């Protein structure tokens, strides 16, 4: 039976797509929301370190699964390897309703005004595609506010002198610090830094009809057993479904965006849960499948009209892949600093996000989420045994005596860092898989060394007896976005050097939009989830308001 034509298709139900589907459906548009995974149910809420979204050695807890999915990586030497979703380097993003927002660490950061004006702030950077966004922080501010109030953020920006200007406070009070956080907060003040509680997309008090956070050890990488973590699956997606205008199709894999002979999008081809090929038509298509999968879908949508993939006339789709260069330091204390109070990360400083001497950008520094025992077994100062009795004793003695400060250093974009599609390798459905290649920008090394030295200083002031730095980029580093992947369909005013316009519309196609981290011109020195949600409101809100004015995007 033919699927009924709808006004809009949204591909992907994560931070961007879940929000966009809600914006369109509450505005009265009929929507089909496609998700390649299913709902995470109560049965999936276990606390197994080896099957989570954080440590995935025995599989991803909430997908994608190792049976049906593959990606290809090209090393700097040109060697090709085929990767499973559970292997490092795949850059997995959860395949379930809500995607990464089900199991993320849930930091709810706003980017800073400078993050949207990196070229204006730092000038042209040789060998980089560093640029300004076509929109400013002020443009996106109302969308951040909507994300904070509709999805839910606990925080208090008034304690952060570097915080972006806001009209309304965050809706929930901040989480109190854990032991590590209290210790680091005091140390930061002694150093003249400006510590403040990390904004969290988690309920510090009952909110949105869901209970308060239990502060469990197994938070980052896991779904919340009491639904205190705020994702799109327990906030905006239920609103979309309750509007009566949105149909969520789970376990459906979109393989291609279809185009008519005028170059207009007619809908998508997809495989349903039983593996049957189907077609869904729509007036508008919004792609929000993550920076890797969005680029892959556009590139796989080849036609007479778009022989190199949709939006790829100038070869920019999939380019400028960014994540974050995570850098910081570890410290060992002479007493327990661990109090088993999840999620672990509570305190941050934004003193080094911008305007550092001779550094492009910077990043926020936070204390780290709780390290689970297997993960901790790989954490040792250089020169320490990796096995044997000494290794075991280290684990026993120091598991509760170690703290980490680290942060997402804002990567300098590189045109060479890239997602495209592999000519040979296909997934279970026969769709060519994403291929990741190229290198991150060499200029990251100076910035990461700077950030790591500040983290180490902070830990020493807090009383760490032994410290060591991590994540300092030395030499050329392979491209990759990790779970913070972004930048592959960047927005811009010039169609020659960007894929989408300032509203997320693909330059060359009137009725195709992107609404996820792919749009990021630069990725900020923060975890990007709240910004992706804000972009969902920005793009979804634009489509909905144009639609209500009679614009049918033809």
């Amino acid at each position, binding site marked *: 039976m033919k699927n009924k034509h709808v006004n809009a298709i949204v591909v992907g139900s994560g931070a961007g797509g879940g929000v966009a589907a809600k914006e369109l459906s509450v505005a009265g548009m009929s929507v089909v929301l496609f998700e390649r995974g299913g709902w995470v149910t109560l049965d999936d809420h276990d606390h197994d370190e080896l099957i989570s979204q954080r440590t995935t050695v025995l599989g991803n807890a909430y997908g994608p699964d*190792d049976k049906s999915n593959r990606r290809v990586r090209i090393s700097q030497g040109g060697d090709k390897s085929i990767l499973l979703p559970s292997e490092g380097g795949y850059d997995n993003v959860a395949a379930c309703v809500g995607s990464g927002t089900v199991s993320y660490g849930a930091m709810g950061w706003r980017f800073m005004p400078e993050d949207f004006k990196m070229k204006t702030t730092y000038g042209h950077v040789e060998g980089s595609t560093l640029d300004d966004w076509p929109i400013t922080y002020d443009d996106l501010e109302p969308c951040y506010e909507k994300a904070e109030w509709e999805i839910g953020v606990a925080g208090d920006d008034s304690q952060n002198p570097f915080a972006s200007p806001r009209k309304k406070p965050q809706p929930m009070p901040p989480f109190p610090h854990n032991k590590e956080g209290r210790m680091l907060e005091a140390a930061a003040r002694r150093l003249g830094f400006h510590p403040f509680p990390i904004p969290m997309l988690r309920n510090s008090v009952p909110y949105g009809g869901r209970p308060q956070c239990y502060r469990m*050890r197994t938070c980052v990488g896991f779904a919340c*057993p009491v639904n205190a973590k705020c994702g799109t699956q327990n906030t905006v997606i239920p609103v979309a479904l309750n509007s009566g205008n949105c149909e969520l199709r789970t376990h459906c894999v979109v393989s291609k965006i279809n185009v008519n002979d005028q170059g207009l999008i007619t809908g998508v081809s997809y495989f349903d849960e039983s593996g049957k090929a189907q077609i869904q038509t729509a007036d508008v298509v919004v792609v929000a499948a993550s920076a890797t999968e969005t680029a892959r879908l556009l590139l796989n949508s080849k036609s007479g009209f778009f022989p190199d993939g949709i939006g790829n006339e100038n070869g920019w789709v999939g380019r400028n892949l960014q994540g974050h260069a995570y850098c910081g330091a570890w410290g060992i204390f002479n007493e327990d600093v661990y109090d*088993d109070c999840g999620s672990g990360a509570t305190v941050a400083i934004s003193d080094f996000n911008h305007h550092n001497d001779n550094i492009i950008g910077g990043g926020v520094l936070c204390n780290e989420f709780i390290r689970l*025992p*297997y993960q901790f*077994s790989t954490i040792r100062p250089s020169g320490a045994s990796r096995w*044997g009795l000494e290794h075991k*004793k280290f684990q*026993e003695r120091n598991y509760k005596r170690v703290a980490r400060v680290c942060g997402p250093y804002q990567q300098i974009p590189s045109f060479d860092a890239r997602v495209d599609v592999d000519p040979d390798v296909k997934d279970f459905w026969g769709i060519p898989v994403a291929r990741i290649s190229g290198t991150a920008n060499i200029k990251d090394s100076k910035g990461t060394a700077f950030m790591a030295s500040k983290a180490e200083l902070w830990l020493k002031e807090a009383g760490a007896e032994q410290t060591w730095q991590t994540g300092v980029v030395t030499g050329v580093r392979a491209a990759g976005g990790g779970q913070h992947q972004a930048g592959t369909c960047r927005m811009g005013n010039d169609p020659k050097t960007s894929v989408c316009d300032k509203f997320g519309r693909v330059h060359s196609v009137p009725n195709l939009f992107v609404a996820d981290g792919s749009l990021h011109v630069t990725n900020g020195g923060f975890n990007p989830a709240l910004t992706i949600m804000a972009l969902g409101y920005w793009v979804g809100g634009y489509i909905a308001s144009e639609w209500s004015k009679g614009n049918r995007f033809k």
Partner: protein
Amino acid sequence: MERNKLSRRHFIQMSAFGVGSLLLFPQCSPQLRKSSWRFFSVEEAFLMDTIVEQIIPTDEWMGARDAGVTNFIDKQLVGPYVRFQEKYRNGLSAIQSSCHILFRKPFEELSWDEQTGFLKMMETGKLSQTLESRDPSQKGEKIWENNFDRSFFNLVCDHTMQGFYGSPRHGGNKDYVSYRMIGLDYPFTIGQNRYKS
């Protein structure tokens, strides 16, 4: 030395159970010997026990052998780690061939310190060189082509950590030994505690 005796005693204990056939019918070829393991042969499992015990030895807390790490790895090799089967089969056999070249005895009969030294050679990738210098006519270099000594050690070491520090539901970390050792309450006393077995 004490450890070696311990592992011998352990061997004899094991033999009393399903491993008895090894002693009763020593003439049987490995393929015919029935193993109660999922992937490993009886000999391979015994070698694995010896190796993982080196990686996480017994002290006042159980070591990796008694915590069931071999069982963990065996279980994963017919599950998510099916792709590593060949590596284990080749790697374990290469360890024994190398030990025969260097010591004229199997790995598990080396002294504790000899075992440690051998694994350190693997870890640093020096095993193949050592084999060649010891006996140039042998094909030692070939056994560990492409730094397989190092990569196989890293693989076993990583899997051992997973088995010892991961959830007991996967077959290792017996009685939550590693959680008790580092002082984590387990199972959780807060929130929900639901397990799929």
